């Protein structure tokens, strides 16, 4: 059989001589490599005290957006659910009642909205499919947990804090998104 590349090296099966058999030279050579790393720049950081900047295309945990008056953007149109390749998103729609105009932006809203983070593959297709600017993948990791049921994220877990009632939390939740938009 011909080799595909010329990089293949045949195994050296000769008998080892005395110097090779005591391994001291090989160990010393190996330790020199280890020792030299002490003077090199550390590639790790002390997470979570220090965090790395996220790439602008990072796709983390989802947030459900609100408009500037704090009304929910989502209208339960189901486009994220039909776009989702992992079928992680499910929802139930309801009709807005008179007097709820400050809660929901449109006539229809999602009464229930769930993302199964066990199924989600963080591909971001829901974000692309959304016509209402309602779902975003934020710059947060999905936290680990001991129980499966903690990974069913409901609407309360996903909604961004109210921009008027909780302005600080809202600003924090926005993250670097605003900066990026300004840069564009």
């Amino acid at each position, binding site marked *: 059989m011909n080799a595909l590349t010329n990089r293949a090296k045949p195994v050296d099966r000769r008998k080892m001589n005395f110097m090779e058999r005591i391994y001291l030279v090989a160990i010393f050579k190996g330790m020199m490599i280890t020792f030299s790393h002490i003077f090199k720049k550390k590639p790790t950081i002390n997470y979570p005290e220090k965090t790395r900047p996220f790439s602008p295309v990072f796709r983390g945990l989802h947030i459900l957006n609100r408009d500037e008056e704090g009304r929910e953007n989502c*209208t339960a149109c189901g486009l994220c659910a*039909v776009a989702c390749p992992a079928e992680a998103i499910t929802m*139930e729609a*309801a009709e807005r009642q008179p007097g709820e105009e400050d809660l929901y932006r*449109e006539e*229809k809203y999602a009464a*229930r909205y769930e993302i199964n983070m066990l199924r989600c593959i963080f591909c971001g297709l829901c974000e692309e499919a959304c*016509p209402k600017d309602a779902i975003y993948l934020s710059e947060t990791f999905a936290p680990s947990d001991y129980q499966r*049921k903690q990974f*069913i994220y409901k609407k309360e877990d996903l909604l961004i804090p109210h921009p008027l009632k909780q302005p600080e939390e809202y600003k924090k939740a926005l993250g670097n998104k605003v900066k990026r938009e300004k840069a564009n």
Partner: protein
Amino acid sequence: MSEEIKTFKVTIDNITIDVAPGTTILNAARQIGGDVTPPAMCYYSKLEGSGGKCRTCLVEVAAGSTADPRPMPKLVASCRTTVMDGMVVKNITSDKVLDARNGVVEFLLINHPLDCPICDQAGECHLQDLSYEHGTEGTRYEFKRRTFEKEDIGPLIQLHMTRCILCYRCTYVADQITDKRVHGILDRGDHAEISTYISKAIDNDFSGNMIDVCPVGALTDKTFRFKNRVWFTKPVDAHRDCENPKCCGKATLWLRGDEVYRVTTRTDPWGEVQSFDGKPGWICNTCRFEKKKTSDWVVEGLTTISRHSVIGANKYAKLEMPKDTIKEVLDGRDPKLLMDIHSVSGVNNPEIYLSELDRPAHIEDFAKPTEHKLDKPGQPSLLNEEKK
């Protein structure tokens, strides 16, 4: 040879077909089928007098007839122009037609709101399909769009006048299928609107058919309103013996699990109601709005959905579920679930029957199990009935 029937030879986009005299160009093109057929928003072959309003079916006539082969000076509406012997028609092979159609779509969309995410018609909307093919991404219109006050036209049908493209199909239904016309067009021009006189509720037996006839989401089923998106429901063909002699009893059920969310007439490839024995298969309001149980119907099988349609997305091509063999393999034990999704999830709760609500759902409806109406002791399983 029996006596010869006189036919006209007509060529549409280089495909020649023999049709009976008096056939319109649109119907001749429908006999050929495929891409050659011009789209139609207002013409409805089962409604007499429809057509000629939307201008989406414009075609170019390159040669009038064998006797007079001059081309027609302007594009003609194919739904209203009858064929002549030796007529040569250009539809998609003509740049003029495609350009005109793009213009017509732009006109139709001037006042049409972009509320597809809310609209129940999305996914089966003819205007949506049309604008995908012919529309532009943006709009050049800078003025205020035409809007209407919301009007309640009864407990069964939801009217969204803002979405209306004034195709007049529903008024023809009111005229021809129901025996007492209570709804029509008011005012003229830009102010024209569909309405029932003094908001008179439509309580005719066949009024529900105007939902199916509406090419956009102007008339939608109020009992299905916001319950689910069309493409998450599964269409099956079913029939029942209807007491109403005018009702054909053959319908399409839109299922979610074992629940019947919506009942519509069956549609032919042109999006019109299917004909049975030469008669259009309209269904009565009892079948459409009240028979929301699978036991009311005899399910025939899955409805064939065009593979380009979003309605066919993420669906199994079979109605029967495959046999569950896990229990057999485990000597009759049930598999140990690490998590039952219904114990955590608030969506698709098996104890909530949205089909039993005759209004759009409210947020409280998802908080507690549905209280069954007296005559509806739960939903019998469709799959069990299949096995019998």
